């Protein structure tokens, strides 16, 4: 018998009904009886079943047996360890048994929920229990690691979610680094005119927060900056941030705007103005930008392109222009990181039949936001691409790129409300006939459906049906010179062709194109669509599987402003909890190298996502820094010598579990 099992295991098996969640598809009593009888030889002393093992009565059952029967190993067959591993470990600890001598095996997610044949699901549950019993014999008592928490926090992304998060933490008295890729914080919200359903002005509610963030003594604003490297783990991350050269010395610049005014070079603004307006080569994205310092767009600046001009430098009253400025890298130490990197909009050129980019008067929702914004390129006038003609009729197409297997199968959440907002604004400002084309109207949440009713009462035409095509090829009288929207009206039950002057495509939300790289940089995971994965979809929506890294806002999935703000605050609360606790306990799951068996082949050296592996050239052995190791197991699997083992996931444990799972096919 292996040394790890020599303390003669006395194992208790506890099979949970989970109400009817498990019991409806697994014969729980049969599993219990089988385990007690068949697994006797494996050290099972007692097996019980109970309606809700996670309830206090269920936990007491285990604790009583530990005390009275002298159990030294526990197997609970219930839900996923994600849900209740901590619960049962804590229950064992209270009865004096090390929590890591308890295995939670899932007969809910792995059996009852995924099968329809009760007899087979029951047999499978027995095997799952056998796997747990075989494995638990090799479990060793472990102690959680305690790590001190650095008081500083990094927030990545200066949209509304990131701003909210930074302000919450800063207001609580702790320092925050707020990193933003663009020249100003504000994000997408700064581009909007009105916000649904209350129609309050986006700038009016956002800019005070931007100013607060910019002036807050606890917030270090790093705009025009990107994170390039992340090392360390919960409590102590070392983050390298590249400050791109602004070519404007922030200490000297007063933000007077003379440079922008004097700059002779006009550049199409494809970021803030969504391609609808122009900016200068030295610019701030918008007048209320925070910080106020402009940046030079070196790709378009006449001096950088042709070597002469320097108008900005000549006119700058404080000598703040520095053409020689270079990118700077700084490394900061933080205890926690919150990612609020937002979204990008769907590119409707991918749906050629909608004509965007080909038919001048087809606009995207972001273009319309800028157009309707009083500070935007048309001064808030809703006009056709020619810049002057008011439309007589406007079509608004919902779900562009969303809820469509060819593009994104998910609902982008905000488009219905955004489209209704557009309908209202068009109606209000132009009196045009408005047609909204929708698949299903989704107006959940407070005040949303009321807004829908209001827009209906304003005389907007709502057509239920997915638009097939937008074309300028007139077929019928009255279509000449118009854009024709071809649609199946599923309520009227017929095909319709509706001629309009202007089409607005309510484009869906997508993860940023570099979301995957960013996730990798920070060591978190993405869903198949590319949205960042939360620790639990319902109960832990702002945490990630990587301790100390949180997510907020649309980077986790499409969401509206109120939800983004709530998530920003929630993530801040989680971080503040860490900071105030001073130290946190971490799972003691770590990889370690047996130096006698390590041959120094260096296979593992480039693999660690947490940079915990280092190589000692003198002794020709690899070492793993337990403070950096997150226990992911990558190096354990890769080590060809089997010299690396993971605590809690030793070969003996894993092989024993597999042997148990294959109980019924033993030869």
């Amino acid at each position, binding site marked *: 018998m292996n040394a790890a099992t020599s303390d003669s295991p006395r194992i208790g098996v506890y099979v949970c009904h989970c109400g009817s969640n498990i019991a409806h598809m697994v014969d729980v009593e049969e599993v219990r009886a089988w385990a007690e009888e068949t697994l006797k030889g494996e050290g099972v002393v007692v097996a019980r079943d109970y309606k809700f093992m996670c309830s206090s009565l269920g936990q007491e059952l285990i604790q009583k047996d530990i005390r009275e029967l002298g159990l030294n190993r526990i197997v609970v067959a219930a839900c996923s360890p994600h849900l209740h591993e901590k619960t049962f470990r804590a229950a064992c600890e209270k009865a004096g048994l090390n929590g890591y001598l308890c295995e939670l095996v899932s007969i809910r997610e792995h059996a009852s929920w995924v099968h329809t044949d009760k007899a087979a699901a029951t047999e499978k549950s027995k095997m799952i229990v056998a796997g747990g019993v075989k494995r638990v014999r090799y479990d060793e008592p472990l102690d959680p690691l305690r790590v001190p928490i650095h008081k500083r926090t990094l927030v990545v992304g200066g949209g509304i979610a990131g701003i909210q998060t930074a302000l919450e933490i800063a207001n609580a008295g702790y320092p925050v680094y707020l990193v933003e890729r663009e020249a100003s914080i504000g994000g997408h919200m700064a581009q909007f005119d009105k916000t649904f359903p209350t129609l309050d002005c986006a700038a009016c509610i956002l800019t005070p927060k931007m100013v607060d963030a910019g002036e807050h003594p606890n917030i270090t604003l790093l705009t025009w900056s990107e994170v390039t490297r992340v090392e360390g783990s919960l409590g102590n991350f070392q983050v390298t941030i590249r400050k791109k050269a602004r070519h404007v010395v922030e200490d000297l610049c007063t933000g007077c705007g003379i440079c922008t005014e004097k700059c002779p070079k006009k550049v199409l603004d494809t970021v803030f103005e969504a391609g609808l307006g122009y900016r200068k080569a030295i610019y701030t994205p918008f007048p209320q930008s925070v910080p106020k310092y402009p940046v030079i767009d070196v790709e378009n600046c006449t001096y950088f392109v042709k070597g002469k001009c320097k108008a900005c430098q000549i006119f700058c009253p404080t000598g703040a222009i520095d053409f020689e400025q270079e990118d700077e890298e700084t490394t900061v130490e933080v205890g926690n990181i919150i990612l609020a990197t937002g979204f990008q909009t769907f590119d409707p050129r991918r749906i050629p039949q909608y004509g965007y980019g080909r038919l001048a008067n087809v606009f995207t929702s972001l273009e319309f936001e800028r157009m309707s914004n009083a500070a935007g390129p048309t001064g808030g006038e809703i006009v056709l691409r020619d810049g002057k003609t008011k439309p007589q009729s406007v079509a608004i197409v919902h779900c562009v790129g969303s809820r469509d297997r060819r593009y994104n199968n998910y609902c982008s959440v905000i488009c219905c409300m955004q489209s209704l907002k557009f309908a209202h604004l068009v109606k209000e400002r132009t009196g045009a006939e408005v047609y909204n084309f929708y698949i299903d109207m989704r107006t959940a949440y407070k005040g949303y459906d009321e807004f829908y009713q209001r827009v209906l009462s304003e005389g907007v035409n709502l057509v239920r049906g997915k638009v097939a095509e937008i074309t300028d090829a007139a077929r019928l009288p009255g279509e000449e010179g118009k854009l024709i929207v071809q649609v199946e009206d599923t309520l009227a039950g017929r095909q319709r062709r509706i001629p309009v002057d202007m089409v607005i495509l309510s484009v869906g939300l997508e993860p940023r194109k570099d979301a995957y790289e960013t996730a990798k940089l920070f060591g978190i995971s993405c869903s198949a669509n590319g949205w960042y994965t939360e620790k639990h979809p319902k109960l832990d929506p702002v945490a990630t599987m990587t301790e100390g890294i949180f997510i907020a806002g649309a980077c986790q999935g499409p969401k509206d402003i109120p939800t983004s703000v709530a998530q920003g605050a929630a993530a801040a609360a989680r971080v503040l909890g860490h900071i105030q606790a001073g130290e946190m306990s971490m799972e003691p799951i770590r990889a370690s190298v047996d130096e006698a068996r390590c041959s120094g082949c260096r296979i593992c050296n480039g693999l660690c996502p947490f940079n915990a592996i280092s190589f000692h050239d003198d002794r020709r052995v690899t070492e793993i820094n337990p403070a950096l190791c997150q226990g992911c197991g990558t190096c354990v699997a890769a080590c060809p*010598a089997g010299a690396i083992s993971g605590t809690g996931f030793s070969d003996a444990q894993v092989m024993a579990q597999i042997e148990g799972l294959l109980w019924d096919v033993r030869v």
Partner: protein
Amino acid sequence: MSKPKFAMYWGASCGGCDIAVLNIHEKILEVDETFEIVLWPVAVDAKYADVEALPDGAITLTLFNGGIRNEENEHMARLLRRKSQILVAFGSCATEGCVPALANLYPRETLFETIYAGPSTENPEDRRPLERAAVPEGELHLPKFYPTLRTLDQVVEVDYIIPGCPPESRQIAAVLDVVFAALRGEAELPPKGSVLGAGISTVCEECPRKRDVKKIRSFRRIQDGPVDPEICLLEQGILCAGPATRDGCGALCPLAGAACIGCYGPSEGVADYGARLMSAVASVIDSRDPEEIERILDGIPDPAGAFYRFNLAGSLLRRGRWTMDGRR
């Protein structure tokens, strides 16, 4: 006083292990001096019946090389186990199946087809071996050919393991020295189940080549172009099994500029050599593009042969999967 008895036997093997034992030079005289050799088909004349006549446990040391391919191999394994105090699985075939075990990828009928009807065989009457055949002189018997080659320890209990294809002669000599000393009462035998004549790490431990963080963008073979004499072969894209293979040979092949092919088997405590080597190699392929990864992996012409050349019978897989009608 009679001398302790020694036996060496071959199952499914090439005979190289026997030669490696003879290759210990003058120490072979010490073997002869210390032991009475009761069975060693390659070196001395003895009959199975002589062994069968011995009392159980009469043989002090038996070195068994070769895998268990047929009924005769199994019979001798069981017989020698019964008669021996110390039974050693000697060499790669006995410990992990070695090259003969690659036949486990195919059903018996396919093997016979290849061997008795293949282009290298002249067999005009298309004969196949029969377990029983009537001839004018009576009935002839051939041992039953099993569908799967097994390692010695999959058939009988084994006391020690000496890996290698074949084990290095200096390592054999060193093990024999321990045995001689133990017989004189001057040393203790290592704990039962130990791997003897080898290290506990891998070939890289003994390989002097310079190594760095590995990033493989393509695989090549040594005949494809010049091989840098200083740098790790794997870093040059040559599929060297050194990182996964137990040390003990002195890194002979990498020193000669040829890839380690893995004959010393898995390192201490590794359950599946091929899986270890595969996951190690896969983890250092330097691409994230599935198609490019596919292209890089295509540079390994025979993955089963490359990763399980010596270890198929001893691996978790043991053999290929085929249906009753012989399809893999």
